[in-house]
């Protein structure tokens, strides 16, 4: 695959802005949501779904498709916006986020939402499941890629490191993982709650191919994904330096944005700021 053109970068930027707006609106309607961790991962998700992933909206369960496990399942609403935009389900579904009977729950559910590849929510679990998916699809000889996104706070979980050890042991070159490294977890900055210390060294020492990039720069993330795809003998970790609630002015860079209350008026105001500042 060729490097990103400037034209494609502009397209992706416009798309990511749209996705952010849709996500802010869907949460604004119910008045609360995990806006911080959803906004910080929008750019990586946009790049994956609109450029890299081999998927077919008309055949969403195609066995040899690329798959994505959003192990930080609370960022589901960002992914729902993308899936709606791609046509996996009607856009009106976004208005039902977290309402009783909704097909779009706060945390990803593969049995409720078309396009969701794995049920996640209890942190750490999705990452192990992506190891299983990568193993299973390799056994089937699909030649596809399994993408997995974990949170930095999620990395407090011991299961992340069990899965990390096993993916390296099984030489899962078909697994490309991302850490949404926004440096914050629910109760505060990571260094206050549970310091991850030297995150790059940790992943290197677990035997992964590790890259660290600006998680809001399409060119940088894209280059890292291309490098990771070329690495076929071990799993890849791309550490994304991100800003929590990126693009949502009332919460951007704030710990409080993890699960934040905001009404529809605040959502509209935030969207106006987004339009102006990210023009």
């Amino acid at each position, binding site marked *: 695959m060729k490097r990103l053109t400037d034209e494609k970068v502009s397209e992706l930027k416009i798309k990511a802005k749209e996705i952010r707006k849709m996500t802010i609106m869907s949460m604004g309607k119910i008045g609360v949501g995990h806006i911080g961790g959803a906004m910080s991962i929008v750019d990586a998700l946009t790049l994956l779904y609109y450029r890299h992933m081999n998927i077919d909206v008309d055949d969403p369960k195609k066995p040899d498709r690329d798959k994505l496990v959003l192990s930080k399942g609370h960022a589901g609403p960002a992914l729902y916006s993308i899936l709606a935009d791609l046509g996996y389900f009607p856009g009106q579904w976004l208005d039902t986020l977290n309402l009783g009977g909704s097909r779009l729950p706060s945390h990803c559910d593969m049995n409720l939402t078309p396009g969701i590849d794995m049920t996640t929510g209890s942190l750490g679990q999705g990452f192990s499941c992506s190891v*299983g998916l990568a193993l299973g699809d390799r056994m089937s000889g699909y030649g596809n890629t399994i993408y997995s996104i974990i949170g930095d706070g999620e990395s407090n979980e011991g*299961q992340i490191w069990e899965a990390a050890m096993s993916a390296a042991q099984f030489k899962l070159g078909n697994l490309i993982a991302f850490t949404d490294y926004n440096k914050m977890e629910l109760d505060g900055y990571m260094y206050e709650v549970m310091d991850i210390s030297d995150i790059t060294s940790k992943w290197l020492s677990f035997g992964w191919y590790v890259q660290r990039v600006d998680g809001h720069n399409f060119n940088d993330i894209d280059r890292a994904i291309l490098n990771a795809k070329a690495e076929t003998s071990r799993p890849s970790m791309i550490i994304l330096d991100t800003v929590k609630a990126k693009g949502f002015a009332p919460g951007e860079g704030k710990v409080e944005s993890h699960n934040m209350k905001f009404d529809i008026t605040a959502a509209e105001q935030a969207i106006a700021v987004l339009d102006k500042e990210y023009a």
Partner: protein
Amino acid sequence: MKEMRAAFAELLIELAEKDKRIVLLEADLMRATGTTPFKEAFPERTINCGVAEANMIGIASGLSVAGKIPFASTFACFAARRAYDQFFLSANYAQQNVNLVGSDPGILAALNGGTHMPFEDVGLMRNIPGLVVFEPCDIVSLKELIPQAKDRKGSSYMRLNRKSGPAVYAEGENFELGKGKLIRDGSDVTLIASGTIMVPEALSAAAGLEKEGISAAVIDMHTIKPIDGEIIVKYAEKTGAIVTCENHQVINGLGSAVAEVLAENFPVPMLRVGVEDRFGQVGDVDYLKKEYGLTAEKIKDKAITLFRRKECLIGTR
């Protein structure tokens, strides 16, 4: 006599030869759980996850999403307690087909002692919606029940005795997952048992009761969830007294499942034989049987108590 783990490994190999989707996951206990022959037969379909049960269940769930049929095997204490959240969510809530095998349930953990002795695994597992929980009492029933669990949509939890136990059934006997098996008919009291320890003990108790002039039916309730309410009610009506026998806590295990059916459908006097709200401890199986009262003698005593209570109840009518 053949050990049950050997029968399990043989059966899994046989099933895997026919069904390419079957994969085996272990957590560094292969040499204990006896599945090494499977690895020799299918190295590429054997995944040793190391000492990491939570990750093993997550990987098994991912394999299920990828269209495989995973069997994940470890000691029952780790299967139930350590990886419960993973089994609950990644496997069951996500509606996957993960067959979890917990070996050495209850006092069968024996020399591994209290830390490894699960008296609560059935209780934990019964709380998972839609899960099948079963415990074969011998090799014949094991071979019949596992393929049914494999082919059923949804996950399962099986309690497995690694060692050999008395043969209860002759080859060729039929079993249906979810249906209790009447082994011995009777008219005065019904003994409902599960597993390799308690089914033989119940049969031995029934023989002892016969000498006392009490006719005891024995039901092998190999599937604890979904529990076979039909046979429970039928034998409650027929015998008017039920004793449950389990190598597990009396809280939330087989006894509780039977009591729930009786209380809501056909209440008759019942008593439970099992571990009475205690932790495990080290010792050989014979010692532990006596220590926790998991014996034919205890079953017989409780059956006689019930029989007399039943007679009194009839007398007051």
